[in-house]
């Protein structure tokens, strides 16, 4: 009851983590393409991190971002450039992306957080697009349209990639959980609910919005840096993509449940599986963006709080009606 969240959700994170850690056992199941499933598991976990990142800034703090690809891409390029320019392992990108993405987010915040509501959202679209164009055109530095290829793969098998991203996801989950219950979490939600009221209650809204943006960006950048090591290839059109990254981040959280604890994870499961299913349908598969658009409209109309958010409302309703 004390959490400032509309629905803090239930579930035991450690039990969930243990169950997820057992997923690589799928290799023991005969007749299953374990590699294919592990790839999807990795994507689900990676997207749940991006979702948690977006949820922090846009779900809790109410600053809707349409530009999370900017931070994903900067993280990915930090890892890629460490490899391409300095000859280091792209894995160092996960460390290096923290200060790089953090600094980039400060700059973005300085420009965009002066704007409120839809104007902030529009400005974040611009940031994502600008970075894609920059990465495409700074050919000498980023390799332009060619992207960056990591020639040596760390592992052929996917198990370790899975455990690494799972560790990042677990750390992020724990971090966001603690944050939301703290003074900062209350301030983020206060800013979301009414910025003028928050300001007059002594909350330095500019400062706390900037903190939310930087934390959110750094988390998203980690996912981007991992992506480089895992996929072994990055391309400006992919890592700075408006629809495949920025909008997908929004979809994951909207479907799962905005400002909920488990929303990003549930949303990532649904969206990644759905994307896979749609892709396998002949002919229709190429129109998956259209289908996602339709899905988003359906979710907004029927499940405005997402799968997790509205499940909670339903449960609460039942509890009130039960005589005590």
């Amino acid at each position, binding site marked *: 009851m004390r959490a*400032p969240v509309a629905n803090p959700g239930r579930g035991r994170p450690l039990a969930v983590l243990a169950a997820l850690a057992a997923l690589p056992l799928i290799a023991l199941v005969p007749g299953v393409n374990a590699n294919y499933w592990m790839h999807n598991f990795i994507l689900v976990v990676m997207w749940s991190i991006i979702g948690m990142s977006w949820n922090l800034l846009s779900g809790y703090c109410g600053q809707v971002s349409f530009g999370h690809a900017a931070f994903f891409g900067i993280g990915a390029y930090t890892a890629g450039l460490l490899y391409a320019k300095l000859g280091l392992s792209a894995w160092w990108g996960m460390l290096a992306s923290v200060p790089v993405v953090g600094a980039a987010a400060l700059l973005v915040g300085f420009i965009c957080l002066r704007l409120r509501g839809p104007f902030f959202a529009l400005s974040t679209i611009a940031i994502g697009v600008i970075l894609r164009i920059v990465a495409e055109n700074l050919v000498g530095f980023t390799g332009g349209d060619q992207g960056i290829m990591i020639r040596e793969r760390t592992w052929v098998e996917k198990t370790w990639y899975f455990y690494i991203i799972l560790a990042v996801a677990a750390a992020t989950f724990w971090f966001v959980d603690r944050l939301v219950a703290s003074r900062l979490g209350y301030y983020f939600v206060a800013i979301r609910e009414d910025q003028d*009221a928050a300001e007059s*209650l002594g909350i330095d809204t500019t400062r706390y919005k900037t903190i939310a943006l930087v934390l959110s960006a750094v988390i998203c950048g980690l996912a981007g840096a991992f992506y480089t090591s895992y996929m072994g290839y990055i391309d400006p059109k992919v890592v700075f993509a408006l629809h495949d990254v920025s909008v997908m981040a929004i979809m994951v959280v909207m479907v799962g449940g905005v400002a909920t604890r488990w929303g990003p994870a549930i949303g990532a499961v649904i969206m990644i599986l759905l994307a896979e299913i749609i892709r396998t349908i002949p002919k229709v598969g190429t129109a998956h963006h259209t289908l996602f658009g339709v899905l988003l409209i359906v979710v907004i109309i029927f499940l405005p709080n997402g799968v997790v958010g509205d499940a909670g409302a339903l449960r609460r309703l039942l509890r009130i009606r039960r005589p005590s």
Partner: protein
Amino acid sequence: MSALLEVKGVSRFFGGLAALTDVDFHVDKGEVLGLIGPNGAGKTTMFNVVNGFYAPSRGEIRFKGERISGLKPHQVCGRGLARTFQVVKPLQRMTTLDNVVCSAFLRHPGRAEAVAHAEEILRFTNLWDVRDTVSKRLPLGLRKRLEIARALATNPDLLLLDEACAGLNPSELEESIGIIRRIKERGTTIMIIEHHMKVIMSISDRIVVLTYGQKLAEGSPAQISANPEVIKAYLGEGDD
């Protein structure tokens, strides 16, 4: 003795419109100052200028001897000047308690202390019974009181109440007047905007009257209700 709040020659223009023109007044420590005037007289604009939402176009505002005009609202609040809003601004999807906890954090950075302080404020303002209600579901009377509770949780030395009693039914009104009196007894200075003459006359120590953005009169409730200019500008329309 220097005043707690000094408003010196404050003007505020919106384009060509003068919402406030050269207004001077002060609030002494421990008193309740009523700010009255017909609709559009500039009362809420005055609050917005004092609280830092607008910078004064001319003049200055001093609080505890320190210039506060030009500071942001959160900085003004941090110096001990809190306000409520005429159009209530609850943090809608948060519970009553969480609303107050948000502002209690200003003086109590730890969560346990902030919650304890907020609970004390909720008891003080008789909102304890609705502490777990999501604030958008509260009736208007309680939302008005939540505004007071939230402002109070920042431990202000000066509390600005913007029509905190408007739209209340008679029993809610009695309760709110009682709460405002108890806030005064705790040693908090109050500046209040109110249309309810019964409320303003009974709780104010002094009254400042604004019309068309200018100060028309200043004095005790008795002086104000006897002032022919005030009666003409304001009370003359009929005293219910």
